[in-house]
């Protein structure tokens, strides 16, 4: 009975100004759909990974602006909702192979980061709860590793860029820093390089071909090899 009651619970929301009643168990995306909207834009993975549904909302009688991924935010009573389908942004064009992992690269390709006034508005907007201002600041001082770590969870939703009074696009700066870090600063996986060499030298081909043949002609034998293979995952 209690479960029944929970199921019925409805909340009042305002979708682009129009009032709707929707079940309290929905997220913002599903609330739009329940109300009869069909998305083409402003939606992507529906799982919190692509940033396409990043949105803003307010509560009735509250001056504060809130930020969320529409697919990850439960509807609440008296929410003012909208869709933000697109945010224009400049991205620097570069060939990573021709860049040096020097701190100054970030400022050279994105000189506008020097305009950051440290107002922290970007951080307040981030639905991933990242310290956006801190990574922009780290970018100004050329600390590529710090930018990479602080920005790693960025889903490039664009909310920070939309709010920045200095017109900075933090997520593009983070992207560049992470690629520089991954390519030039992080230690290389030498065991991978070694394995690639072995593969080029055809070290495993005979056995692989043998298995392929068994798979086609004597599956039972291959099954036996499979079952008897040593399992070392501890």
């Amino acid at each position, binding site marked *: 009975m*209690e*479960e029944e009651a*929970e199921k019925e619970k409805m909340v009042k929301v305002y979708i682009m100004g129009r009032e709707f009643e929707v079940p309290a*168990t929905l*997220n913002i995306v*599903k609330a739009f*759909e329940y109300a*009869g909207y*069909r*998305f*083409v834009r402003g*939606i*992507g*993975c*529906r*799982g*919190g*990974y*692509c940033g*396409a549904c990043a949105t803003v909302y307010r509560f009735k009688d509250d001056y504060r602006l809130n930020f969320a991924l529409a697919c*990850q935010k*439960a509807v609440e009573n008296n929410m003012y909702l909208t869709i933000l389908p697109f945010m224009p942004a400049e*991205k620097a*064009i*570069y060939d*990573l192979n021709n860049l040096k992992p020097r701190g100054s690269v970030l400022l050279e390709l994105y000189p506008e980061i020097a305009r950051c006034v440290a107002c922290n508005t970007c951080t307040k907007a981030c639905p*991933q*709860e990242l310290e956006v201002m801190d990574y922009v600041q780290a970018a100004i001082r050329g600390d590529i590793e710090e930018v990479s770590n602080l920005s*790693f*969870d960025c*889903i490039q939703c664009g909310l920070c860029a939309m709010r920045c009074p200095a017109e900075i696009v933090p997520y593009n700066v983070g*992207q560049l820093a*992470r*690629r*520089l870090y*991954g390519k*030039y600063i*992080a*230690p*290389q*996986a*030498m*065991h*991978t390089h070694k*394995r*690639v060499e072995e*593969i080029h030298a055809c070290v*495993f081909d005979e056995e*692989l*071909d043998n*298995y*392929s043949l068994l*798979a*086609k002609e004597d*599956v039972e034998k291959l*099954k036996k*090899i*499979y079952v008897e*293979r040593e399992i*070392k995952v501890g």
Partner: protein
Amino acid sequence: MERGYPEYMLESIEFVKKTRERRLKEIPELMTLEEREEILRQYHPDYKEDGKRIVKVGANAGEFMPHEVADLIEAYPLIEPEQIDLSTIDYDSDILIIGAGGAGLTAALWAVSSGADINRILMVTKLRMGDSNSKMSQGGIQAADCEDDNPTLHYLDVLGGGHFTNDPDLVKWLVREAPMIIKWHEELGIMYDKDEEGCMFVAPGGGTCRKRMHSCKDYTGMEIVRVLMDEALNLDIPTLEFTSAVELLMDDAGKVAGAVLWDMEKEDYFIVRAKATLMATGGFGRLHVQEFATTNHYGATADGLVMANRVGARIIDMDSVQYHPTGSSYPEQIVGLLCTEKLRGRGAQPVNKYGEEFVYPLEPRDVESAAFIRECAKGNGLVTPTGMPGVWLDTPLIDILHGEGTIEKEFSAMFLKYARFDIDMTKDPIFVYPTLHFQNGGIVINKRTGVVGVEGLFASGETTGGVHGKNRLMGNSILDYCVYGRRMGIYATEYVKNATVGKLSLDHVTKYVDLLEEAGIPKERKAPILLPEYRGERTISHALPLLG
């Protein structure tokens, strides 16, 4: 933090807590091959007789498929061939790539580095570039690049996981090229988890005999795809977003020769003529087979299967569907979303409402899912306030085993996902149930990604079949789109050097319609469906196209 569970679920959590200590030592045994077969037969949704039917038309006529897929194969085209003006070519290209997820982007990059003319490539995609299943993958990518591992062991695991139904040759190239992919990714600047010496952090996965899963925290797919996108943007590869392919074009010689595209926003069509057409449209989670919730992105509607089937491509293994054992089942707002297998790889255990373990945590996915379904059928699961069944996944074990902070560091995406709903997965277990995850089967291709029996058409990624057989192991499908996406880029570039295109035609569609009519298929059924329909019933039943 508040505890975001209702009272009766919190009571069950108390049982889970009580048994935790004991379960640290006692882990259930792996099933034998026979036991696996038995549980699959009894509980796996694939084995449900009334879940599928024999399709009547197309290259796969006479074969079993889930109703949801059969409904797409036995469906009329969205466009009527006579409406379409083929005399004006809007885009004349060498290579048309349909879909900008992992497979599409990888193919585009490798086409460019293999010498394709960038300006004669066209990539089209339904949503934005990169919005795809590929962006969502969490756990990782398999590659046998560690000392105690090698590609032959990887080979055995892939085949064993697929119950020996895979295409043995496709698997060979998959495992053989895996380490090269990791190396390529490193060169692109992808930040894999490594130690100070550069040694990759590897985790085990269901059905693997070695730790082989490479990850980028639990944002593996996002990290890979955003780098591929950045590279595609740097190279300025011509791309059309919010544009769906709705039908393939053929020429008078019977080769695939481009596609009819539909602008999702302006709602008009255009014609692309292409020497090679590359299908990278991904999977079918949004078909909600047997009404399961899904982990997949909004555009995962099997369009590629439909279009390819109409030009005569065969599809295989569609009778097997991958349900991921651990989809979120509570709270309602995130039902169906994935809880990565790596959680179990790092020690989280499935337990029932009494806090009892009931299955080895890392069986192959189909077996693990069947065990969850069995447990709930036995009445040992719980039901959420919105009616979703499920069992517990005891995540706090991870921090107990590997130290406090491990979850927040390695699973920051997952942690945030639950924290948004006041659930602290480092303290309380999470509530899970199998969710529709992956399209095991698909279009039949050869090792050069050519679609078998159809000239001018290539395919790779989740839309294809054979690589994984009837069951895919975790981490092998990122690998799949990398290895075969790359091959697709390379071999399509090679192909277009000497390829020509004749007069464009949609006759194959007309013929297909004739077959449908003969088979008595109801006219309202149309495909591809492009986007799932989630609007309220009232809106759907009262919708009128008054503006035309």
